């Protein structure tokens, strides 16, 4: 396809897109007038039915728990894909899919960088764990807390280098944690199916509103989602970090 044909094709597509956007824009309701009723029903019913103040977590881990199960498996498959693609390439190039020592020499970091990354690790672990274990009480939860928590291993990589990072993010444990996190969600769903006849029904005692152990299955599912997200992200960082350890492929003769 020549450049002029592609430009003409692009112009037609842009014109069509513009028509669709204007058409859609004119059909939008006035901003700030959400008509309901689903959100209103949930906002009214969920605090009494599930004994929790954060309705967003109730939607995520209970009312639409099946959707979150699907989303969690998308995450699982994406991380598995990253691992497979990068390891396959490294194995073909160097014969070693899991390089550790060879590759670039460790770069020197200043005292200040090392100091602040170690301090930051402690703060991040404390804050993200707090955020992650309160899905039902505050605007937090397993997804947000765990995605941020995984960042502390990246901070170790930046501040202390690959060897320290590799000791923390050892791959066998991450793979196990990710698989357990993804599988446990489905197992909880099947267990509630057996117990009550409904997939992902909230069968545990609801407890008092505002307590750490309340809202039934929501904090349990959230904990496993958090485990899966943190393990998935760390595994992802680890695979990309291994790219810096890779020996250059030998030039073809």
């Amino acid at each position, binding site marked *: 396809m020549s450049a002029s044909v592609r430009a003409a094709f692009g112009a037609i597509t842009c014109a069509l897109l513009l028509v669709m956007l204007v058409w859609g824009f004119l059909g939008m309701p006035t901003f700030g007038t*959400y008509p309901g009723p689903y*959100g209103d029903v949930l*906002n009214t019913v969920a*605090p009494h039915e599930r004994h929790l103040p*954060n309705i967003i977590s109730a939607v995520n881990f209970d009312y*639409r728990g099946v959707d979150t199960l699907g989303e969690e498996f998308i995450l699982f498959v*994406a*991380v598995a894909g990253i691992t497979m*693609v990068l390891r396959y390439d490294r194995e073909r190039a160097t014969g070693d899919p899991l390089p550790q020592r060879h590759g670039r020499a460790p770069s020197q970091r200043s005292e200040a960088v090392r100091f602040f990354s170690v301090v930051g690790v402690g703060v991040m672990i404390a804050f993200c764990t707090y955020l992650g274990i309160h899905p039902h009480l505050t605007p937090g939860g397993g997804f947000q807390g765990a995605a941020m928590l995984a960042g502390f291993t990246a901070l170790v990589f930046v501040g202390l280098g690959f060897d320290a990072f590799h000791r923390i993010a050892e791959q066998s444990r991450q793979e196990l944690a990710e698989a357990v996190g993804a599988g446990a969600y489905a197992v909880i769903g099947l267990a509630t199916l057996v117990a009550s006849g409904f997939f992902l029904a909230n069968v545990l005692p609801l407890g008092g509103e505002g307590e750490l152990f309340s809202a039934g299955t929501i904090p349990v599912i959230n904990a496993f989602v958090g485990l899966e997200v943190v393990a998935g992200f760390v595994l992802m960082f680890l*695979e990309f970090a291994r790219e810096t350890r890779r020996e250059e492929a030998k030039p073809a003769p």
Partner: protein
Amino acid sequence: MSASLAFVVPAWIFVVGIYGMATSRNLVHLIMCLSVTQSSTYVLILEAGYRLGATAPVFSDVLPGVRATDPVVQALSLTDIVVGATVTALLLAFTLRVYKKRGTVDPQALRPMCG
């Protein structure tokens, strides 16, 4: 016309991302533009669930029954941001593979698809 200018914002983010993807000369840049395009959907659905003068649907400081925004769209965008980050990383892994195999990340130089 009942539409509000607030809905121009997601349309603008969407169009900027599409423009970036169409004119991109680097796959990493293209993936970033794809993320920008994707984030326009978050803005759109959050605006669709918004209600003027309403609080967030977290009833720890306010009593249940106070006017609140739609929790469903917020739950949707929350999970999607995390999943979108991993999908972006998967695309970046593919980019690394393309670079090792073909020695370039310019989409225009990569037109014929061959194994």
